[in-house]
């Protein structure tokens, strides 16, 4: 039902990684939903596709876990928007998850081998 074009060079997010990315995005301060999606897409050079259908439930989920909190504010264009902010609990979780993620990437990298360099 989503209407995004699924061009082949874009990578669909792994389950669970979206949460991590959202938390990571929020480390620079308050952001609204559209901003979060945009930031993830831009920072990954448009390689990652954020399905809006997953974004809002994810935000909802994180809010429920009290890793982020939200309040209504005004955007740079004077639009009313709901801004999300990292909580102390969320920050702790982010650190822990980031370390875990790095270890996972290293381990997977070791198995997959070094032949392809980063580009």
């Amino acid at each position: 039902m989503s209407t995004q074009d699924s061009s082949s060079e874009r990578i669909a997010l792994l389950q669970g990684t979206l949460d991590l990315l959202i938390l990571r995005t929020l480390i620079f301060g308050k952001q609204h939903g559209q901003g979060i999606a945009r930031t993830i897409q831009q920072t990954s050079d448009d390689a990652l596709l954020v399905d809006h259908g997953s974004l809002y439930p994810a935000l909802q989920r994180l809010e429920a876990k009290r890793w982020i909190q939200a309040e209504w504010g005004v955007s740079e264009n004077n639009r009313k928007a709901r801004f999300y902010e990292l909580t102390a609990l969320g920050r702790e979780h982010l650190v822990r998850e980031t370390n875990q993620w790095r270890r996972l990437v290293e381990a997977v990298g070791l198995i997959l081998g070094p032949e392809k360099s980063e580009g």
Partner: protein
Amino acid sequence: MFGKPQRRRDEDFSEEIQSHIQIEADRLIAEEGMSSAAALAAARRAFGNVTSHRERFYESSRWMWLDSFLRGGRQAVRQLRTSPATTAIIILSLALGIGATTAIFSLADQAIWQELPIAEPGRLVQLDWNGLYIGPGRGWGSLMSYELYRELRETDGVFEDVFARAPVGAVLSSESGGAEPVIVEIVTGAYFSTLGVQPAVGRLLDDSDDVNRGGHPFAVLSNAYWQSRFGGDPRVVGKTIKINTYPFTVIGVGPKGFQGLDWSGVPAVWVPAAMSAQADVNNRDFFNARERWLHIFGRLADGVSREQAQTRLEPWFQAYLEADPKREGWPAVTPQQMRDFKASTLDVLPAGRGVSLLRARIEQPMLILLAATGLILLLACLNVANLSLAKALARRRATALRAVLGASRRRIISEQLIESGLLALLGCAAGLLLAPALMRAVLAFLPTLGPSENALGADLHLEVLAFAVGVSALTTLLSGVAPAIYAASVRPAAAIKEQSNAVAGGLGFRKTLVVAQFALALILLISAGLFAQTLGTLRTQGPGFPTSNLLVFSVEPQGAGYSYDESKPLIRRILARLEALPEVQGAAVARRQMLTGGSWNVQLTIGLPQQVVTESSIPLNAVSPGFFQTLGAPITLGRDFDDHDSRDDSRWGLSKAIVNQEFADKYLGGADPLGVRIGIGGSPDTRPEIEIVGVAATFRDRELRDPEPQAFFPAWESGLDGGAFYVRTLGSSQTAGPAIRSAVADIDPSLAILGMRTVDDQLDRLLMNERMLATSAVAFALVATLLAVIGLHGVMAFSAERRTKEMGIRIALGAPRWQAGGLIVREAVSLATIGVAIALPLFWALARFLESQLFGVRSLDAITVAGAAVLLTVVGLSAGLLPARKASSVNPLQALRSE
């Protein structure tokens, strides 16, 4: 998860999405120079299906289940309100199915299957004499003599213990209350210990209370009687009650819920067999070896089966059969009778359910009624399924549309589930309310036998209630939810586009349901026709004499302290007093009340030149002069009895008789009946000495079905210790009642008038089975037909709507309008006809089951069957008419344009 439940309203969430789209649009305008409209559209596209996201947001809310339940409930109520007629019919169908099944089954269970509230009812057995018994009897069922009981009790290794019992009617009085007729259960000493029941107060009777005749004036009250007459006062122990004016001391009260062995004749009091002469007004020699008056029960010894018991009793019983003819009082019998007597066996029958006269009478009608209610439950379920399917199918496109707009499948299904559940709940609740009312209605048909109330209560049988509720609720849920599951899972675009084809699958199923409904309705309609005709025939035929303004009541002088010898003069005084009343046109007395289903039967010996014994027992009665005139049954030959046909001290026994026309035709051939002599009894030493002086027109005495040969003797010549008075009143019998009561009270205020009622009322009681079956069958048939019509109409209306376009084309191409409508009517009639065609062989198979309850009509009565079939077909036709009219009045242009 355990934080405070900060619920976000979904309005808040929509706002967030709107803001997201706005910000994205702003960005597109700023960064890519789009026009604001294009930007907004692009942003929306990029975001995807807004409703779907909102839905998913909604479902992530942790209070969702409760909220969606409430929403579903509101939605369900809304939906049910949009079609109040359908909702009402579904609820009523469920209520009726559940109510009727539960009520009838609960009654049938109590009346037919329920075991006695005693210890290990499975070990209780009753003994039944199977063969020819020689000797007089009194009572009903498997009657045995006291002698047989006494010897049986001495057998070893079969029974833990044995007791005998006999119910008798008596008048009970106490300090606290006046005289009232009750049932007294005469029991031998081991009654309570063998049944294994414990007293509520005081002690129960035991063997020590059953030793010397007349020496143990002790009584045990039933718990129910104790509650109603003594207010449950434990100080009743030691008090004196009078049974037929003889004083008994109350020694205890039976346990709660224990009502003796017969639910149709519940005793108020138990007395020991040693006191039977005092407890029974008829003052007979019950301990005589010949007279049978007892039911014998035993509790099987541990580990002994019924079959083993029967085998082990065999030698003892053979010895009894050998010894019996050598006993004093053995009458002269024919060799054939002797052979039959010697060939008798003693059967050991299961008796955990006790004994019941009424049970035998109502078992068959009850089972028929039960089968009918089963059909009604099935029919109700079919109807509910049909209507629920109709609703779901009609809503199918709306459901698909909702799916497209983003409602999740789970949500759609759960909403339907809630709606169906609500329906089921309402239906079941209504059924629960209906069941006790129906039970009381059926109970009202069952008469009480003699003075006791029957023990059947309006308590619902919980397992059956659960079964009926379960079946109904399941039907409602399945038929409501299954189409919703299908509708929600089909690809929405297809569902919206599709018109007739996919829906036709559901329609086919609904047609099958309607056919089944018509089949069931036909079976019930034919049964209703047969039972109504049976009742009608019996009612219009009547007993053979006019029953209007005819009152009947009984008096038992010995209950008020008169001796046997004083009884007949008292009865004559009462009769003379009644005849003198201005309200009374005529009055007479008969020894035995008529039209009660019971009788006094004896074989007669007829002294034609060669002596003839009637092959079966003849119902007898002793009647006063003027009896036939009071009834309005003419004497066709000879004369009535007169006051000279009376016994005084110098003469003994009966000398005159009147027989009915049936007797004359059957036994006297063409001979002149007058002057023929008859004798009471069928043994070779019976001497025909009673002269036939008259022939009366035949009327029904015992019951209404077939006329029986009958003989009457003069009441004033017979022993008359009580009698049934028949009073033909001038004007309404209601107004004469009080005058009659005060006339009797003038003679002796302590005389109880027993069971005063009109003979019409007596007929109603006699016809209780027929009335019960006819009334319920007609009610069920009407309901069934109505449900079938509703089902068919619904299907036809749906089918007509579906074919609107086809009709439009036909009419546009020049087909006459009636032809378009004709298609619908033809389909309706053919569905009804298929139902009828299926039902006919089914009914043919069931017909034998009904036969025994019918009179004046065969179970496969062509007119009734054809009438019911035609009626249903016409009804089917009318169910198609309305949709047909709508179909034929369709505007072809509009029809083609629609959809």
